[in-house]
C-alpha cells in the first residue's frame, strides 16, 4: 500500500470513526437510561410494569440487533415516514443494549443484601430514599465493570448499523474496498482503529471485573 493511498484511506476512515464515536455516545446514554428504568421497574415496579420490563429484556435478548435496526429503519418508512439513519441506529442500539444493561443493573440491585432494606425501613426511610441513598451507591461499584463491558460490545455493534446504510467506520472501509480492492490492507486498517479504541476499555474491564464467569 502506497503512502498516498494510506493517507487518503486514513482520512476517510477517521471521519467514519468520528461518526462511530458519536453514535456510540448517543446509544450509551440512551441504553443506560432505558436499562436503568427497566431494571428499577423489574425489581421494584408494581405488578404490571415488572412484567412489561421482563418481557422487554427477554424480547431483545432473544433476537439479533440487526433485526431491531431493520425493523426501526424500514418499519418507519413502511408507515410513510422518513427516519434519519443515525437516529434509527441510535434508537435501535439503545433499545437493544438497554435490555442487556438492565440485566447488569438488576444483578447489582439484587446484590445488596435484603437486610439493608429492613434496616432502612426501621430507620424510617421511604422506598425512594432507600433506593437512591442506600442501594444505588453500593450498586455502582459492583455494576461498573460489567457495564463498561457492555458499552464495549455496544461500540463494536455500531459496525452493524453500516448494514442499514450508515456511513461510519465500517462503512468507510467497505466503500474504499469497493473502489480500489485490497480488502486485507483496508479491513486490517479498520480493525486496527477499532482495536485502538476498544483495547484500553477491555483491559480496564479485565482488571476490574471479579465475576468473569457470569
Amino acid at each position, binding site marked *: 500500500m502506497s503512502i498516498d493511498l494510506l493517507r487518503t484511506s486514513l482520512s476517510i476512515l477517521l471521519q467514519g470513526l468520528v461518526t462511530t464515536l458519536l453514535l456510540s455516545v448517543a446509544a450509551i446514554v440512551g441504553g443506560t437510561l432505558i436499562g436503568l428504568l427497566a431494571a428499577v421497574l*423489574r*425489581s*421494584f*415496579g408494581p405488578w404490571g410494569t*415488572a412484567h412489561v420490563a421482563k418481557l422487554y429484556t427477554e*424480547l431483545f*435478548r*432473544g*433476537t*439479533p*440487533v*440487526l*433485526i431491531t435496526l*431493520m*425493523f426501526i429503519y*424500514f*418499519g418507519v*418508512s*413502511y408507515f410513510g415516514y422518513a427516519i434519519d439513519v443515525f437516529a434509527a441506529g441510535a434508537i435501535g442500539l439503545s433499545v437493544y443494549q438497554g435490555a442487556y444493561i438492565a440485566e447488569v443493573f*438488576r444483578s447489582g*440491585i*439484587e446484590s445488596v443484601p*435484603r437486610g439493608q*432494606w*429492613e434496616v432502612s*425501613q*426501621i430507620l424510617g426511610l421511604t*422506598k425512594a430514599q*432507600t433506593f437512591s441513598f442506600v*442501594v444505588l451507591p453500593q450498586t455502582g461499584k459492583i455494576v461498573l465493570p460489567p457495564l463498561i463491558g457492555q458499552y464495549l460490545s455496544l461500540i*463494536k*455493534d*455500531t*459496525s*452493524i448499523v*453500516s*448494514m442499514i446504510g450508515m456511513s461510519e467506520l*465500517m462503512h468507510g*472501509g*467497505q466503500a474504499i*474496498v469497493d473502489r480500489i480492492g485490497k*480488502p*486485507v490492507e483496508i*479491513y*486490517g486498517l*479498520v*480493525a486496527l482503529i*477499532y*482495536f485502538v479504541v*476498544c*483495547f484500553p476499555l*477491555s483491559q480496564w474491564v479485565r482488571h476490574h471485573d471479579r465475576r*468473569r*464467569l*457470569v
Partner: protein
Amino acid sequence: MSYQWLTLWGYVPEFIHAAWLTLEVTALAFALSVFLGLLAALATISPVAALRFIARGYVEIIRNTPVLLQIFIVFFGLPSAGISLDAYWAGVIALGLNVGAYLSEVFRAGIQSVPRGQLEAAAILGLEPSQIFAEVVLPQAARAVYPAIVNYLIQLLLGTSLLSAIALPELTGTATVINARTLLYIQTFAVTLIAYLVLSNALSWLAGRLGARIFHPPLIMGAPKRFAGWRLHRANRA
C-alpha cells in the same frame, strides 16, 4: 391486512429452509468455537511463553474488533491469501473464530476455578497429568462454565444474522430477499423476529434440560426469582 399475511404464507417453506440453515451454521460454528476455545484456554495457561503469547494475541484481537469486520476479513480477505470460501464456510469459520475467543476466557476461568489443592492431592495419589485434567478438573470446570457456554451459544445463534451481509440465505438474509420482493417490511420482520425468539428460547430450554440431566447433582439454570425488596418494604409497613 389479511391478504398481506396470505402473501407471506407462500414464503413459509423459504422461512423453514432459512431457519434450518441458521441452525446448521450455528451448530458447526459452535463446534469449531468450543474446539478453538479449549485450545486457546490450554495455551493461555501453558508454561510455554510462545503459546501463551499466540493465544493471548488471538483472544485480544478478536475481542476488540467487531464480528462483522471479522466476517468480512474471512470472506473478502482470505481469497487474497489464496483461500477461497463460500459464504457458508466463511460464516462458520468467522463466527467460530469469534466465539472461540470468548469461550477461551470462560474455559480458562472454569479450569482455574478448581482449587489448586485438588491438583496436588490428585498428583500425590499418583494420577497422570492427563488423568488429573480429564477426571478431576474437567467435570468440575464443565459444571462451572456450562451456563456461560449456553449464553454464548445463544449469542452465536443471533450472530448468524450478520451473515446476511455476505449473502448467506439464513433467516435475516431470506427476510431481506422477501422484503425486496413483497415490500411487506413489518410482516416479514415480525415473522423473522418470532422465528429467532422461538429458536433462541428452544435452544436455551433444551440446554437447560440437558444441564439438569448430565450433571450430578442436576444443574438448575434459569433466571433468579424476582427480587423481594419492594414487597418486603410493603409487608414491613403494614
